[in-house]
């Protein structure tokens, strides 16, 4: 801050430095190239002989469909639940709301399979609810993913809502708008970028989710990441696993690129 007072703050900032310091960026990039890029290229090469066979199999097609179905349902669920919880914490605060928000932050770092493990006790054949067939249905995966990924939607929402001036809500209410109208016309338009960011991240993560599906272990709910594991580790069919991996990479990276473009453009406009 003292530096800014001297007036030298904005003179030289954020412009690419002309000197040779960029060579320092090579070792970390080399590390990623050897440990990530090279293996992924090999996966693509290895997959070559198995494409026709895998693409034609019903196993692959149903897994692809199931993966997208589960990811889209889970993301929709997370958006609904996450928005509700974030709105209550931000705008109908109760004693302890801050602690709850902190809890949400902590949950982001916990492993997802814990949720699946708990479902064994809640919905299992001898558990609390004894909901027999539910545990082996795709809906168990969706419910587990909604549980685990809701905090990922809540976090950007809570941040955006804390920046929203309270006076705006009060003015809208004093002019006679009911809670629904305030929510729809004042709050939601303001937090839409955060909703979009949280939702797209959740969609990416649910497409890639493995731990929950593995632990629930339902025969009927094979997703693409699960199929990569089954083919690669259980059946030792490396080329087959590689084909599915390439499809999954295309799906994830394609989505990621689209989202980054959409979000990047929006951020530029906001700035």
């Amino acid at each position: 801050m003292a530096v800014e007072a001297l007036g030298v703050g904005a003179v030289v900032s954020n412009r690419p430095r002309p000197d040779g310091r960029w060579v320092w960026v090579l070792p970390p990039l080399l590390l990623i190239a050897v440990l990530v890029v090279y293996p992924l290229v090999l996966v693509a090469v290895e997959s070559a002989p198995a494409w026709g066979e895998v693409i034609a199999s019903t196993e692959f097609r149903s897994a692809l469909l199931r993966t997208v179905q589960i990811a889209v349902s889970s993301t929709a669920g997370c958006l609904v639940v996450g928005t509700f919880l974030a709105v209550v914490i931000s705008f109908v605060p109760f004693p302890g709301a801050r602690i709850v928000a902190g809890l949400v932050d902590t949950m982001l770092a916990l492993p997802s399979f814990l949720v699946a493990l708990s479902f064994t006790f809640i919905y299992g054949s001898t558990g609390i609810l004894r909901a027999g067939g539910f545990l082996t249905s795709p809906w168990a995966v969706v419910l587990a993913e909604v549980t685990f990924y809701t905090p990922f939607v809540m976090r950007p929402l809570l941040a955006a809502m804390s920046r929203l001036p309270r006076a705006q809500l009060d003015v809208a209410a004093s002019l006679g708008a009911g809670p629904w109208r305030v929510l729809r016309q004042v709050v939601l338009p303001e937090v839409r970028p955060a909703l979009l960011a949280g939702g797209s991240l959740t969609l990416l993560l649910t497409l890639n989710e493995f731990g929950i599906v593995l632990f629930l272990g339902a025969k009927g709910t094979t997703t693409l990441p699960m199929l990569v594991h089954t083919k690669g580790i259980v059946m030792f069919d490396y080329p087959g696993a590689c084909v599915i991996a390439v499809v999954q990479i295309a799906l994830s990276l394609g989505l990621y690129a689209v989202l980054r473009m959409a979000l990047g453009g929006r951020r530029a406009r906001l700035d």
Partner: protein
Amino acid sequence: MLVWTKPGKAIVWLAFAVVFGLLVVAPFVVVIAAAFAGSWNGVLPSDPTADHLRQALSGDELASLSVSLQTAFLGGLLAVVFGSWGALSAADTRFKRLADAMHHLPIAVPSVVVGLGLLVAFSRQPLLLNGTKWIVVIAHLVLMVAFSYGTVSAALERIDPSYAEVAASLGASPARVLWRVRLPMLLPAIASAAGLSVALSMGEVGATIMVYPASWRTLPVSIFALTDRGQAFVAAAEAVVLLATTVVLVLILDRLRGRAAER
């Protein structure tokens, strides 16, 4: 602010408690309760016992805890070093976009695919690592480096660059600027990257299950093996061990971060 009447608020809070309690909190409470239950055949667990926990802290399961801790520290430490290095060296250069994209790759791709890639690449010459613990450490390093890079990069964007520039204009060498100005200012971010890396590494399952050798089985893999054999209660106890260890580690790193922020 949004709901003004007392009954209205009560209804909203009740709905919040039900949704948050059942959906978000219940799973974690259930796992902890199951860890200490002898049996669970009704609404509530019964026959409280510490046997499962004792089992989870002996023999093979204890070895898994040690394996997980070593992997998290080794992989996490290397990830923080390389992630911070990458973020610092790429900032303000024309390689920034390339570095961003390359570091995002391991997060955007499913962890199972990262594991498969390592398996395919390191089961052959020139780097034959399959069957050793190093392939597990590398898998963790690769996944956590992405998070470390992201955390430190974000912090760098918030930090006022003029401090480093003033130091340089006063004649400090680049190494001195890095060591005495830029790194100390980044220390809180680096500590929180370390906390995140360790926590995520302790719970990593997707890449690990693809590459682990029998001699290097991490906690989550052990927990899965237990549930697969139908020993759900011991699995729950071991999950509690995992949770407790992670929380303790993160709290320690969080205190370090607090101390770094004070300076």
